[in-house]
């Protein structure tokens, strides 16, 4: 066991030392060839070349010397001494061989087992590995690597000579190997066996139920950091787990984290910060959307250039199903690399997903403003530096591997070709120079002559005879460097003349047979070069504008800039203050985002004055129970108190804007109800256009979701095997979780009470994020909002809380709250309920729409919540139903969606009423706010008009115009092809 640890550590360290300790003679000495020894120096001198330098400049008329697979010297004025075979490149270009540090080359993938059962898969495979199958940190790509000729050839054709091979499977994916793409055997192909350690947020082929969500992935990452450091701090180890060994051992390698959008990138980087890891982020091509924030992470990126295909818009009905995001992304994605450079972000480019479009997409990025130097560096020097192997690959410097490509011209001129890819001093032909021979030719054949056009597509030649009146006749042609063979019909008979030959300076010559079988001589003489696509010679200076703005957020109804806070005077509206002043015709003054004054006939200078006459002004609506603006809702394990909804806030969700349009200014984003102990809440304001972190309400108290009843006992899944399956078990889940947390607390207390020297000789308890969260509840540092239905379970949870000496803050849904409202009031719990949902589950059979009114009557603080992205934008109407059902006063009814949820979220000191000093979260309604005819005209958050109906009307037109413009552009591009 101990031995194994050291083995891994040594391997990792060896990998790090390798770049510095290179010398020649790397051949595998213990390998016996089938034949006689054939050792060669492979010493070449490439002369008269334009050579790309690490600093981005070109050495012209320069020489590159290589020997034994390494670079010996690079420079101008080098004498080519004996022992080198000279290759005169005649002003062709040499670039470092390309390096792709995000491939799965040569590494076998795992198959995902298809599970047909609906039973939860609660445990990892019974192996001495991690408790979670998505943690595969012990995997070493080098141990699974086997060269794949076909894939290798594809990479070579694209100009790559070294790639990082990883197994993109799991949340911890183990190490990748740096592999050169020559014909060497596997032992020699791997030049760094453990080059980087890899992570992601996707569980891959693991069929274990946990994680079932993005926040579960984040939580698993956090806990594994803690587990690994606890585990490897102990001698002897408390048990056997190779994944934790490896996790710790490979922390010193470059840490590469794959994410699938910019929001994940920001969050993943923060998790890295929590554990002193700076990830290299393998991003998707959307970083341009918030490049400023990506830059703030300080992370280097690995960026794909798989620019999206044009969305299908020919069919007008299908076009309507294409999002504005996809339309804009099609336009803007090719500008991504350039935007990243403008934001001073360091990145490598990977060919992954772009595949054969790699070079053309890279050229497109350059056309769109990426400097050619940045483009080259991103596929040579920078990826090498990110792995710390820049002395081995990625630069043309002495002692580095002799990995380079020869191009017919500057790489970013459209007609330049990659001709040869040299890998470890061995040549691999990509294309032949004869491709430069495209053009118009005259074929002289005995006494006859024909005009012939020769073109190349994907390296393959095609030719035709040009006749009068734009008619043509097909020519069958085959070409190699040395041979030409072609045939065609000289007349309409279809009988073909067949010709063979060899190249000469400006064409080809040879012999052949006519259709009637007579021998003849022929010459094919070039008369004109092919008509070339005009190449913009000034691409680097002539930077095009972005085709459209990068709106905030990057979704329809986003804006070019986020609205600004205003000082306001709203005059003459019916003001629902929700405080002692009551509901009255009044003026409201807002300064610095706060309510500055409520009164009659107010006047103020330097304010935006708003005519509220005939309208109603209310506090912003607060939704105590929402799941909008989240990437995922439910984690599966019985107790997922460690997951944080804050990790998965989606600031680009259109439902934020739609909520604003319904007068909603704040919401608690809750974990779902799939388990008794859910996750930690995110409490947000609907600051449309700001990134996730800035949606969170500063300094808000922390909450957690609990759930009871049918959902948590998996009533709709007959195959479920997860504890609990009854309400009896649900109680025990809580009792157990709190008891365990207390026990955990005691262990830490014991440890903390030891002297420093005693602590050194004692293993600290394992930090456990589940227990720590439960402890926060017991310590009143976190408050519970519990999904609940029937009276028995409500009563139960009150009793559990009492026995552990804390309070349930809020019962949510609480459909039978009316049956135990007196107990709730006595306990001090609030009720956040639906207005009139009922009957959809057995436990909702006795839900009644009078619930809110009765609970209120019994002294419970009552809120009406949505739990639904659509209903949340009509919460005022849902509150109104308490007037219909139970005769609640209109003022009290409105309080259920304003001040009362603020009380339940401990935010009533700054929200929920139009009271001096409180946040100016306000809604101006066209009509009585409880009426179905009321429409929110303007919604302010802290004096900032995040929604305005008039502006929305303009936005509708702008969206239509923008869509039409991009769809037209897609159509035009289609016509060009």
């Amino acid at each position, binding site marked *: 066991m101990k031995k194994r640890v050291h083995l891994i550590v040594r391997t990792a360290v060896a990998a790090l030392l390798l770049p510095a300790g290179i010398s020649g003679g790397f051949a595998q000495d213990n390998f016996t060839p089938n034949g006689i020894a054939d050792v060669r120096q492979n010493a070449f001198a490439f002369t008269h070349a334009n050579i790309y330098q690490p600093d981005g400049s070109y050495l012209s008329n320069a020489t590159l010397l290589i020997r034994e697979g390494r670079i010996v010297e690079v420079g101008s004025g080098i004498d080519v001494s004996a022992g080198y075979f000279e290759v005169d490149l005649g002003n062709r270009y040499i670039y470092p061989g390309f390096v792709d540090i995000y491939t799965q080359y040569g590494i076998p993938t795992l198959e995902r087992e298809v599970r047909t059962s609906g039973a939860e898969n609660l445990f990892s495979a019974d192996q001495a590995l991690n408790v979670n199958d998505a943690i595969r940190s012990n995997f070493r790509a080098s141990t699974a690597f086997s060269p794949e000729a076909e894939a290798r050839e594809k990479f070579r054709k694209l100009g790559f000579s070294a790639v990082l091979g990883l197994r993109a499977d799991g949340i911890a994916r183990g190490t990748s190997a740096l592999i050169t793409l020559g014909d060497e055997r596997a032992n020699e192909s791997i030049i760094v066996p453990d080059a980087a350690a890899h992570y992601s947020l*996707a569980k891959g082929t693991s069929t274990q139920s946990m994680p079932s969500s*993005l926040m579960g992935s984040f939580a698993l990452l956090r806990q594994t950091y803690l587990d690994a450091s606890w585990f490897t701090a102990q001698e002897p180890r408390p048990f056997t787990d190779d994944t934790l060994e490896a996790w710790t051992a490979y922390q010193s390698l470059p840490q590469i984290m794959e994410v*699938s959008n910019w929001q994940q990138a920001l969050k993943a980087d923060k998790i890295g910060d929590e554990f002193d890891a700076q990830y290299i982020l393998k991003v998707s091509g959307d970083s341009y959307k918030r490049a400023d924030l990506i830059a703030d992470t300080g992370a280097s990126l690995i960026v794909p250039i798989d620019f999206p295909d044009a969305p299908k818009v020919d069919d007008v*009905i299908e076009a309507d199903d294409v999002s504005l995001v996809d339309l804009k992304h099609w336009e803007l994605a090719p500008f991504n690399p350039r935007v990243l450079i403008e934001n001073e972000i360091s990145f490598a480019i990977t060919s992954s997903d772009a595949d054969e479009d790699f070079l053309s997409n890279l050229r497109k990025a350059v056309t769109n403003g990426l400097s050619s130097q940045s483009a080259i560096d991103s596929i040579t020097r920078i990826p090498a530096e990110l792995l710390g192997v820049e002395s081995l690959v990625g630069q043309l410097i002495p002692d580095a591997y002799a990995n380079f490509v020869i191009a017919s011209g500057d790489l970013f001129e459209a007609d330049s070709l990659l001709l040869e890819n040299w890998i470890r001093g061995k040549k691999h032909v990509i294309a032949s120079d004869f491709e430069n021979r495209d053009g118009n030719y005259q074929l002289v054949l005995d006494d006859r002559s024909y005009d012939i056009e020769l073109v190349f597509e994907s390296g393959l030649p095609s030719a035709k005879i040009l006749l009068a009146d734009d008619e043509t006749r097909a020519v069958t042609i085959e070409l190699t460097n040395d041979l030409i063979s072609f045939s065609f019909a000289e007349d309409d008979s279809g009988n073909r003349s067949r010709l063979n030959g060899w190249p000469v300076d400006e064409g080809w010559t040879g012999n052949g047979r006519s259709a009637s079988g007579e021998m003849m001589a022929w010459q094919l003489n070039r008369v004109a070069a092919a008509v070339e696509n005009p190449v913009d010679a000034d691409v680097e200076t002539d930077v095009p504008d972005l085709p459209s703005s990068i709106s905030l957020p990057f979704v329809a109804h986003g804006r070019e800039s986020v609205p600004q806070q205003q000082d306001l005077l709203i005059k003459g509206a019916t003001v629902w203050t929700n405080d002692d002043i009551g509901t009255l015709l009044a003026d409201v003054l807002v300064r610095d985002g706060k309510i500055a004054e409520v009164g009659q006939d107010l006047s103020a200078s330097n304010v935006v004055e708003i005519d509220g006459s005939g309208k109603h002004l209310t506090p912003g609506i607060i939704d105590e129970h929402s799941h909008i603006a989240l990437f995922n809702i439910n984690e599966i394990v019985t107790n997922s108190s460690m997951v944080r909804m804050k990790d998965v806030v989606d600031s680009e969700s259109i439902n934020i804007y739609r909520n604003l*349009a319904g007068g909603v200014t704040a919401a608690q984003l809750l974990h779902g109800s799939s388990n008794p102990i859910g996750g930690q809440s995110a409490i947000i304001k609907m600051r449309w256009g700001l990134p996730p972190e800035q949606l969170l309400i500063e300094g808000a108290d922390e909450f957690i979701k609990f759930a009871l009843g049918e959902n948590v006992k998996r009533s709709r899944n007959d195959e479920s095997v997860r504890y609990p399956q009854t309400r009896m078990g649900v109680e025990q889940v809580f009792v157990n979780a709190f008891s365990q947390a207390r026990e955990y607390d005691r262990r830490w207390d014991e440890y903390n009470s030891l002297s420093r020297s005693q602590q050194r000789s004692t293993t600290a308890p394992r930090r456990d994020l589940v227990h720590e969260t439960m402890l926060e509840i017991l310590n009143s540092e976190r408050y519970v909002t519990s999904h609940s239905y029937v009276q028995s379970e409500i009563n139960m949870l009150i009793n559990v809380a009492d026995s552990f000496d804390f309070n349930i803050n809020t019962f949510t849904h609480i459909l039978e709250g009316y049956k135990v409202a*007196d107990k709730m009031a006595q306990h001090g719990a609030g009720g956040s309920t639906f207005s009139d949902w009922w009957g959809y589950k057995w436990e909702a059979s006795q839900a009644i729409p009078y619930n809110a009114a009765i609970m209120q009557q019994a002294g419970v603080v009552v809120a009406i919540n949505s739990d639904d992205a659509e209903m949340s934008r009509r919460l005022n109407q849902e509150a109104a139903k308490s007037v219909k059902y139970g005769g609640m006063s209109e003022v009290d009814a409105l309080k259920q969606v304003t001040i009362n949820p603020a009380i339940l979220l401990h935010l009533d000191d700054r929200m929920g009423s139009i009271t001096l000093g409180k946040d100016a979260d306000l809604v101006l309604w066209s009509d009585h706010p409880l009426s179905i005819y009321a429409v929110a005209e303007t919604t302010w958050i802290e004096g900032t008009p995040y929604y305005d109906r008039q502006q929305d009307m303009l936005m*509708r037109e702008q969206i239509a115009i923008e869509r039409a413009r991009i769809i037209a552009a897609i159509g035009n591009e289609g016509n060009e092809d």
Partner: protein
Amino acid sequence: MNLLQKMKATRIIFLSLACYLIASFSMSSAIVPLPAADQTDPIAITGAVIHVGDGEVIADGVITFTDGIITAIGSANDNIDLRNHLVIDIQGQHVYPGFVLPNTTLGLNEVSASRATQDNEEYGDINASVRAAIAYNTDSEIISTHRFNGILTAQVTPQGGLVAGSSTLMKLDGWNWEDAALRTDDGMHLNWPPMQVRRRNPQTFEFETQENEEYAGAVQILHSLFQSAQAYTGERLNLNLQAMQPLFDGSAKLYLHANEAKAIISAVRFARSYPIAGVVVVGGREALMVKDLLLAEDIPVLYEAVHNLPGMAWRDIDEPYKMPFLLTQAGLKIGLSGGATGMIQRQRNLPFLAGTAAAYGLDQETALMLITKNNAEILGVDNRIGTLEVGKDATLFVSTGDALDMRTSQILGAYIQGRDIDLFGTQQQLYERFRDKYSNQVE
């Protein structure tokens, strides 16, 4: 009057009438309301704001009905003969025709999550022969919650598969399904197969849309069925084909359940390739995209997605809200149905779908038509219900205020074919029980 005075005044009226009603509730037991007895005396409701259901409003109106049939309607000035009538002066409250709820599983499905209570979906793709009527449970506790909001007639409809079976229009009062039926087997329900399906990728936790590979096959199954049905002579008895014959003689309608534009086109073209006179699109979320086809074919739409989110982020935020207006403006005949809001327990909010339509473009009486006159016409029962006209059923209710707005909707009394039905359901019983419990505690 200022706002507060208004509120007080409203509440006083409400309380006084509520007292009257609760007195009559005291007869109720702890099971679903007793079906009402037939009308004995002629009844006249006076002092009413009468919403006829066809767009007309009669201020200070009078309506009389005898033996369950409306005998007169007009204003106080029309000197309607009130002799021998039980006269109820409702002092400016509102009278509405009973709302009509299409496409519902009311009475077929008690608890959505409980399999034993589900009788809404038979096994298999083709179930032309199954009939919702016979599974309709008059003792469902959901029914009274609908009556409480003015919904007095419902099209009880089977779900699932490609051909789900026949629906029946039910009066929401009756001892058993035979009594309750207003029009039996009014139509056959066809669910147009989806062209695309959405699946969650278990590795990335994200949803992905894929083409439905079974689409073409499903359409072929439908054609094969309808071709056989059209040619059916009764030789070699086939219950499914037999059940479809009313489609061809015009005695039953074909309800095409389709939401996407292409699905609507395909479904309508499918229906029009057979000699079926009565065709209705149910769902119709993207009907506006294909309005000219629906206009040309004279096909009405039962629109369901009012309280929905817009289909795409780029769509107007109030697109679903204003869709009834846009469809009406386009010249289509539109009714509203609550199906797309999901669970049947929410369909009691049908009037508020019309209210939303009124908030976003339609005038209130036109919005009201969508759930009265239009629904009745589309469902083929406008000879009996849907508007308040002489000779039609006295299926109507009284509300203190605008019944399309939850703020003002307070249904005080309701009649189905003149029977004075009990609005006091299980939910009201539970309300009183616990209200009283805490009231007693306070005192």
